[in-house]
């Protein structure tokens, strides 16, 4: 490494970010060159002096006031039409409220429409087991019936009797 190359590399070496191979090359040159060694020592001393002080910090309690002032200034900023629209559509605080509103509307509409649709076909054929069914059984039955039908259409449908049949209405 020449003196010129070493002095170019010194700026990286003394300020701290040097690949190990470059650092080794600089160190090897400094061992044999008194001029570059003196230059390196001066640079190191200067950097140490410059870095000696603490980071400048603002006075205590500065940041809360800063944030308030910043918010006020941003609120006074003219906002474009597109930005205004985008903010209205995507205000996160309104997300849950909008979801709740959708659920309520769906519930109300479905409740209002149900009588207009009339009774379903199952209501027209009363189940003969009805007197024996408890409320909890009633809530389970539709899914039970569906499960049995699925089973019957699969393995159970080929060579086994159905486990559950709704009795047809007698004469």
């Amino acid at each position: 490494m020449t003196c010129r190359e070493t002095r170019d590399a010194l700026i990286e070496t003394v300020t701290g970010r040097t690949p190990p191979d470059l650092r080794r090359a600089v160190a090897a040159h400094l061992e044999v060159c008194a001029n570059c060694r003196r230059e390196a020592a001066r640079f190191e001393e200067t950097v140490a002096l410059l870095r000696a002080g603490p980071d400048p910090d603002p006075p205590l309690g500065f940041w809360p006031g800063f944030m308030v002032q910043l918010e006020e200034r941003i609120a006074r900023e003219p906002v474009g039409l597109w930005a205004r629209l985008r903010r209205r559509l995507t205000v996160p605080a309104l997300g849950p409220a909008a979801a709740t509103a959708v659920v309520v509307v769906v519930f109300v509409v479905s409740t209002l429409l149900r009588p207009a649709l009339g009774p379903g076909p199952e209501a027209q054929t009363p189940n003969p087991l009805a007197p024996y069914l408890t409320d909890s059984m009633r809530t389970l039955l539709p899914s039970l019936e569906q499960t049995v039908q699925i089973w019957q259409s699969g393995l159970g449908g080929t060579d086994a009797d159905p486990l559950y049949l709704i009795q047809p209405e007698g004469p």
Partner: protein
Amino acid sequence: MDHEDAALVAAFKRGEESAFTAVVIKHRETVYRIARRMLANHEDGADVTQEVFIRVHRALPRFDGRAQLRTWLYRITVNLCLDFQERRRRHAWVDLDEVVQEVPAEAGPVAQVEAGALRQAVARAVESLPPRQRAMVGLRLYQDLPYDEIAGICGCSEGTVKATMFAALRKLRVLLAEEWSEERR
């Protein structure tokens, strides 16, 4: 881009104003320190810091994420500081009282006086650098940024940054030697 910064930028673009507050809280101290070191007093540093985040709020929806958010923020900070100094058309005003007040009170009286004098000497020496040199020295020595990032912030080549740093350190060495010997007299 830093994952956290990328998530905050994306959230802000979706309209979450709180993401901007998080960006400010994360970067305000570094932005303040860069501005304070370039402008050499609290008042101007605070004003520029405020202005930086106003600009960021305006421009963040258009930020494309090709550069690091911090590089972009620091570029805005350095440019605003340069504009600020250009507008005032005078050298930065170094508040030497502020510099002395930064000496920790736990140190003994002699150490406090010496440390205060040294900081004043350093502050005066740094203040005598041209603004762009001062920016580069600050970003390298105090923010510990790599040379390629400083080049991105200052809008020049890495070689230019290194050459400028070399010249700045040589000048500072001479100035500090003079200042320090005067202080000791």
